[in-house]
């Protein structure tokens, strides 16, 4: 038992635990510190977005309520079926679909991450100069090599 505690102690987890308690106790001041310290803007700068959001939400909710209430409502078995060019519906619509779409989504995520990494570089392009340029070309080159491989494998071949 003592050995267990010694191991616990040696790995420094008691400090983690103590820090954790302190973190919970100081959560609010911690967060306010975060919001004041490193930022080059204030969170209140973003208030107009919330104004626009509430305006848009209000418009949508009111329109939806109105249109739901003033139109006629007539139901029948045939009418409530999903449209299938006039013939009786066959099975369920949620059938599995080609994996190509899934692969496109995977490729998109990877390229999205690449593009996100390029923004901070592009904004600082003039300060970083030649060195940064070479590093980014290396970064893009590695990714483009993978992209070439994927194209050669026929991932993006649609028939």
């Amino acid at each position, binding site marked *: 038992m003592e050995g267990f505690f010694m191991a616990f102690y040696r790995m420094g987890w008691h*400090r*983690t635990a103590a*820090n*954790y308690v302190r*973190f919970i106790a100081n959560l609010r001041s911690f*967060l306010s510190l*975060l*919001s*004041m*310290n*490193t*930022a*080059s*803007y204030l*969170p*209140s700068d*973003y208030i107009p977005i*919330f104004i626009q959001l509430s305006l848009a939400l209000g418009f949508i909710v009111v329109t939806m309520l109105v249109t739901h209430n003033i139109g006629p409502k007539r139901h029948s078995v045939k009418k409530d079926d999903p449209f299938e060019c006039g013939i009786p519906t066959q099975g369920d619509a*949620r059938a*599995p*679909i080609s*994996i*190509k*779409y*899934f*692969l496109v*989504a*995977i*490729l*998109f*995520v*990877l390229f*999205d*991450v*690449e593009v*996100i*990494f390029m*923004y*901070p*570089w592009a*904004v*600082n392009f003039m*300060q*970083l100069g030649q*060195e940064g340029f070479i*590093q980014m070309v*290396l*970064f*893009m080159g*590695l*990714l483009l*090599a*993978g*992209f070439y*491989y*994927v194209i050669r*494998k*026929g*991932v993006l*071949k649609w028939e």
Partner: protein
Amino acid sequence: MLQIAFFAFIALTLIGALTVLLTRNVLYSAYALLLTLLGVAALFVFAGADFLAVSQIIIYVGGVLVLVLFGVMLTSKPTTISTSTVVASERSNAILAGSRGVWLGVLLAAGLFFGLSRLLMNAHFALFDQPISKAPTTIDTIGKQLMTEYIVPFEVISILLLVALVGAGYLAKKSIKP
């Protein structure tokens, strides 16, 4: 005003996370995850990390979650639903999660939470102690740090992305018959 908004976003995040946990329809939990991710992005704004917030929205909400939804929508077989547990009108709209390995999940989550919180507690934030960063925006700081001090991790990331691309190509080779 800001306090109210702050706690509202915390509530949004938590409600989303709880819905992810408690609903059995995988599709609903994916949409609840959308709420959580948006809430976390808003909290990033409060924490002074606007670039991080936008990256969160573009990558996680716009990319990863779309991938998850594609996976759920395209591979599901609605025939596996046990008809007794679902309301009749909802039958074809539900994709239920198999609840195997609950304890494994709990263990994994606890381990991840412990590891991450330990990392956060023991991390040394170099910029945290400085009064106000001289760079005009957070994105300037990130760009400069990324291309100078953290250049090795940056290039390693590109290798990681390369590996993922090769993996995608391999998946395609298995599934697409020439």
